[in-house]
């Protein structure tokens, strides 16, 4: 947890000007587009959480997941804690196990895409920072 916080501090301190941002390093929006199919396929195949994602509106699901991936990749997004609370409030029974499963699938997606361990840690850290908003507590 401590290393997460340090990484988060590094991410948001803005002191390392020469270093491109996490989002830039990952490849920007094309990287999100490449990740979304793999990530969505993984969550649909994961019995722990698939029921939260198994909508008849698959195009709508893709749109939401692109927004999520853009956020955790450190890219431009307009999510607020309130949005995340509102957006997940109706999902009954949502708890830490489900959140962990999403983070796990996210990490597996990134590994599959060849993203390095440090960057995966940074991304997981951003995801971790919204856990309480998503779980509405």
């Amino acid at each position: 947890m401590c290393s997460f916080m340090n990484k988060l501090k590094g991410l948001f301190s803005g002191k390392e000007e020469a270093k491109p941002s996490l989002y830039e390093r990952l490849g920007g929006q094309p990287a999100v587009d490449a990740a979304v199919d793999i990530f969505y396929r993984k969550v649909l195949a994961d019995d722990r959480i698939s029921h939260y994602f198994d909508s008849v509106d698959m195009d709508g699901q893709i749109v939401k997941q692109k927004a999520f991936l853009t956020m955790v990749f450190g890219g431009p997004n307009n999510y607020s804690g309130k949005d995340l609370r509102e957006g997940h409030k109706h999902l009954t029974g949502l708890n830490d196990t489900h959140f962990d499963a999403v983070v796990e699938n996210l990490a597996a997606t990134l590994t599959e895409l060849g993203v390095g361990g440090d960057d995966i840690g940074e991304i997981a850290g951003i995801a971790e920072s919204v856990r309480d908003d998503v779980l509405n507590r």
Partner: protein
Amino acid sequence: MATVQFEDSMVSVASGSNLLEALLHAGHDIPNACRAGACQSCMMQVLDGELPAAAQQGLKATQKAQGYFLACCCEPQTHLKVQRNPASQSVCAVVVDKQLLPGRVLRLRLSSELDYRSGQFVNLVREDGLSRAYSLASVPELEPELEVQIRIHDDGQFSQWALNDLAVGDSLKVQGAFGDCFYTSENMQQPLLLAGTGTGLSPLYGIVRDALRLGHDGPIHLFAGARVADDLYLDKELKSLASAYRNFTYTPVVLEAEIQPDGIEVGDINQIMKAHYPDTKGMRAYFCGSPERVQKLRKQTFLAGASMQDIHCDQFTPSSQAVAA
């Protein structure tokens, strides 16, 4: 109750009603079919004001960003200024040919000046306003007339009228063309996978011929499903297409058969397609037919590796009038 400015007029939308009803009631000619947010025929564009979220439910991000919304799902809370969907046309068409195909399918050929892509759909509108959405099986570059294939339902208001009363020489109004289920030639080597049941075959027939006409290089495989062999209403046309083009394969599938018919597979079309293509990575897919069928095909194809942006679907939703009839 809120007011909406449309063209040069102002309409009031009563609470519990919607913008489509209010515009039709005020005498405006607005394309529409399902009135349930599925067919997207009544799509309009907002110029000013705040839309209720329900009016944009299910639209693609690109459409929302342009202010597109569905009039049938729009119960405005505040004043809006809206305009017609600039893409929609309304033209007159004359019936030039009428033919009953196997499987209780009526083929109509209509002469008209409509701009469209093969596989898109139109609304056919009778003089009294009764309208239904049908996909276009014709290819504008190959034949001058529009072709629609209409499933005859015993209690179908429109299909019974088309079968019994509509005659060659009569005219109809055509609104459209709608939908984004059509062939695009950006990747001519990509394998194409198509599947449809019933008259879901009609847009696929157009899409396949459009792809072949444009010289698509990759393999094209069409699965056509019907309950029994006699209902495979484009069997002859598709077989001759398959013998004319080396890269086109046609697999007819029936649900029921007492003895294994020659050249036809028996069973569930989803399972049969899956057995042929356990891995769909890199493929482009087109699925048309009932919503349940199309949703299952889309999901299984996505899980088997295809990218969501390569899966194109056209769901045939019964109109609310048809359900009520």
